[in-house]
């Protein structure tokens, strides 16, 4: 019983870390990529960056809400890692 409680607590901590820090990292990568992509597509560079940064907060909010509602904490971390990797690759090619 005690084992289950501390496992639950640990899972909750992982979820919190994933949501707040993992979510932020993924959002930051997405913002940088989005800025680069929009600049490539013809938008003025500074404009693209400002738009991406503003939208970044909405993206982070969505990630937070999803992170706290997804069933499996493992799934959360896998998704964050995959998303992060994808954004990092995109960023590399576009910048």
């Amino acid at each position, binding site marked *: 019983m005690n084992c289950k409680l501390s496992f*639950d607590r640990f*899972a*909750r901590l992982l*979820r919190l870390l994933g949501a*707040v820090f993992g979510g932020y990292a993924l*959002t*930051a990568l997405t*913002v*940088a*990529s*989005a*800025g*680069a*992509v*929009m*600049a490539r597509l013809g*938008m*003025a*560079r*500074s*404009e*693209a*960056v*400002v*738009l*991406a*940064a*503003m939208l*970044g*907060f*909405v993206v*982070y*909010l969505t990630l*937070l*809400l999803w992170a*706290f*509602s997804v*069933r499996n*904490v493992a799934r959360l971390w896998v998704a964050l890692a995959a998303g992060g990797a994808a954004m990092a690759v995109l*960023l590399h090619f*576009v*910048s």
Partner: protein
Amino acid sequence: MERSFGKSMVWLHSWAGVVLGGLLFAVFWMGTLSVFDREIDRWMMPQTRLAPGTQSISLDRIARTANATVPAQARQWRVDLPTERVPVLRFSYQDSGGDIIARQLDPETYAFIPNQGTKAGTGFIFPFHYSLHLKWQDLGKWLVGLAAMTMLALLVSGVIIHKKIFAQFFTFRPNKRLQRSSLDLHNLTGVIGLPFHFAIALSGLIIFMTLYFPQAHWGAYGSSKQANKAFTAEAYGRFARPKANTRGTLASLDAMVHRAEREWAGGQPYFVRVWHPGDANSYVELRRSYARDITMNMDQIYFDAASGKVLHRFEAAPVMTLQRFISGLHFIQFEHWALRWLYFLAGLSGCVMIATGFIFWLEARRAQHAKKGLAGVRLVEGLTIGSVTGIMSATLSFFIANRLLPLSISFAGVERAELEMWAFYLMWIAAFAHAWLRPGRAWREQASIIAGLSVLAVLLNWLTTGDHIAHALATRRWAVAGMDLMLLATAMLAVAAARRLGQRAREFAAPIGPSVPVRGERKHG
């Protein structure tokens, strides 16, 4: 863990609310007061309670004063022109070491106003709102950012878990048990205020977007320092040229102002800054006022100091202008009294939302925790009282210290302005201690303290400045009268709250049955 989306949202809403509610209240409270920060300034700096000036400002006259005052190797000096809400000129310069020294000038006589020795509204309350005065590594700003994101998540999760959002749109039953009426008020202020609370939190984040997403430009520009400078220059506009290290002159600033007004098709500058004063490469920066717009434009013109020629002109691009509009929705620097008061009331509704959220959480768990011997309610109640009534008492102590301390005091090497802030923090700590030491009675006692402090502040203003409410109204010093009236209103509300909480306490002495009206309540009369 949570078996359904709804349950996970309930969990998120409760935990985020309890853990960060205190911080959120502090940010919302200081933000609400910041709506009237310049009025608070007038109250706390009596020698700036000037009637609005009648003659137009001569910047060349100020330039002569600057010449006499600003030290030789200063990097820049600047003057902020008076506005409807700020009747004095703000004069400041940055010395060669980088320190900024600020003074105030009377716009009629161009004489310096004695140092008022206070940070007041714009220097303490407003920066507390966005930085908590925690400067190390911008920790305070990051905490406020975390609070803002949490507020957004709380608002969305709150809407999701509120099942009767339309049916209970107007529902407020103050005569029911505290648990029910606090939840009603929490839902009321949360739902009706939803557009405001969401826009305020999001716009606050957007203001600091380059702090919260410092890597935003890495994709489009690169991550070097040059890349950062390029982005800043293209987005925000920057102009700089190095010193020549030979002597130079300053042409007529008033002529530059006239030129700028023509360039801006009637728009007026709100401040003038002279870079490298006295140098041959000195240049003058003017920025356009946004007192009549929501958008905080970034229009700037740079003039060569010696010749008055235009060197550089900048206006924000469309998307950046949108960012400035969104920032303007938050900063509310425009002159519009109806809107300013509505923002103040909306901010208060946010404070009520947070406080009632706490109260509901406590009441919903009080019986259960007492039965099981859990410490949760006891801990959170102390936290709530300190965060809500505590910060109010602390703020009032800040105002009272301002009236009590002599102008040129310093104690153990601490300047007057800092002593006022010490009064704030010490009172806040005392409020927390009181809350944890006297759990049953702390709410009522702190409400009474707030009432007492508010009245004391009004009396001290009268005693130390002679500006009682009638006198302030008669001499058209609206800011001072407004502040005193708000303090008295606070006192009346606090007394009513203390009475109500006293009745609730007596109600709790009786067994809890089905929802009954509070005994002894005056019916609608």
